[in-house]
């Protein structure tokens, strides 16, 4: 079967969204189901069929969602109602819309500098400092993550990006993520903050 000529194809648009919290590992298919559910729940089957949402790329903590041209607004509203993906709490922050995937990819792909050539499998640039520490020392294990205390409890520092620090409570029962700032940790217990963050 020969492919349809470009003039007869459906016009499509692509929406770029950032996945929060940073570092959340998701599967493309699961995210598609979450977006599709949100769209169907908000707009119904008939409108969702017109929007035809699809997840076309999921890389570097960003997702590219495809829709039919003219339905970007509806899709954006539906995407703002996505709160979880397979019991993992997430939030999709829409960054841009475009007619091509490539122009969106240029927005989130880390720019390669000629001086710092990375080994295959290693990605640089946007990775947080904690991640860097983990990769430099070898295997990424839970106990290698730096610790801190907040509200008289001990936490592992999961992510650290600028002022923002995401922590997870040490232990087996409460593994919920807390979203703090460096200032919060400094105020409460300055002596226990790891030097690595």
């Amino acid at each position, binding site marked *: 079967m020969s492919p349809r000529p470009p003039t007869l194809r459906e016009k499509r648009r692509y929406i770029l969204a950032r996945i929060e919290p940073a570092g959340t590992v998701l599967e493309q298919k699961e995210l598609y189901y979450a977006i599709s559910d949100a769209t169907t729940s908000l707009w119904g089957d008939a409108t969702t069929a017109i929007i035809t949402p699809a997840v076309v790329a999921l890389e570097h903590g960003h997702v590219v969602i495809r829709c039919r041209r003219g339905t970007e607004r509806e899709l954006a*509203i539906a995407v703002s*109602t996505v709160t979880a993906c397979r019991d993992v709490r997430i939030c999709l922050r829409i960054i841009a819309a475009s007619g091509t995937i490539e122009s969106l990819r240029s927005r989130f792909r880390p720019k390669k500098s000629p001086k710092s050539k990375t080994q295959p499998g290693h990605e640089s640039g946007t990775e947080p400092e904690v991640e860097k520490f983990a990769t430099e020392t070898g295997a990424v294990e839970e106990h290698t993550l730096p610790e801190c205390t907040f*509200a008289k409890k001990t936490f592992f520092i999961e992510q650290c990006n600028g002022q923002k620090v995401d922590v997870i409570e040490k232990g087996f029962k409460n593994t919920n993520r807390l979203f*703090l700032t460096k200032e919060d940790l400094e105020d409460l217990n300055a002596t226990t903050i790891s030097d690595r963050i």
Partner: protein
Amino acid sequence: MKITDAAVYPYPLGDTSVRRLALEAEALGFDSIVAADTPSGVYGGVEVRSGLMIRDVPVKDVISAVKRAKDSGRVISVNAANNNFNRAVIGIKGVHILRGIQSADKTAFDHVAAKMAADNRVAVDIDLSSIIMGRSVVRQRAIHRYMDIMVLEQRFEFPITLSTHARSLLDMRNVRDIAGLCSLIGMDVPDVERALSGVGTVLTPREPAVKVIA
């Protein structure tokens, strides 16, 4: 005009510290937030206003709580209940916002309450969390109730506030998303702008109708 999220719940009510919520709010395009049970301050260029949320108490207790919090600069809001309660609360001087209309009775906020809210400058809060997180009947009911509120707002022009009721930064939405969500309840862009500055409107003292010049 300050773009304000009229209700967020920082740690320990939620999982995000007030500083982090302020940082996130700045990134999302807000100028200020109203945080429950948190001292006022400015973090990263975002003004954090202290909020007092009164809920599930009789009118008598609301009056005493409002008296205690008077002149503290806090944003006082009361959870809506039945029609009589709402009318009584709107009449109390010092109450700024009436919340939770979407989960109150169908007749909880009628044209009389709307007129009173306009006269006393009490805002009605639109809680977007019920649209963002609610599904099926819950969301449908909330949208229907807010559409009804907007009909009364067009007629009586009482203030409206918008809030995400975020307990986490993941529950917050940027201003563009909020405008999109508000379009579901029939709000256009000027309505959304007015609603986002609603907290500032209810906190600003009203100018007297008659001005004595000499």
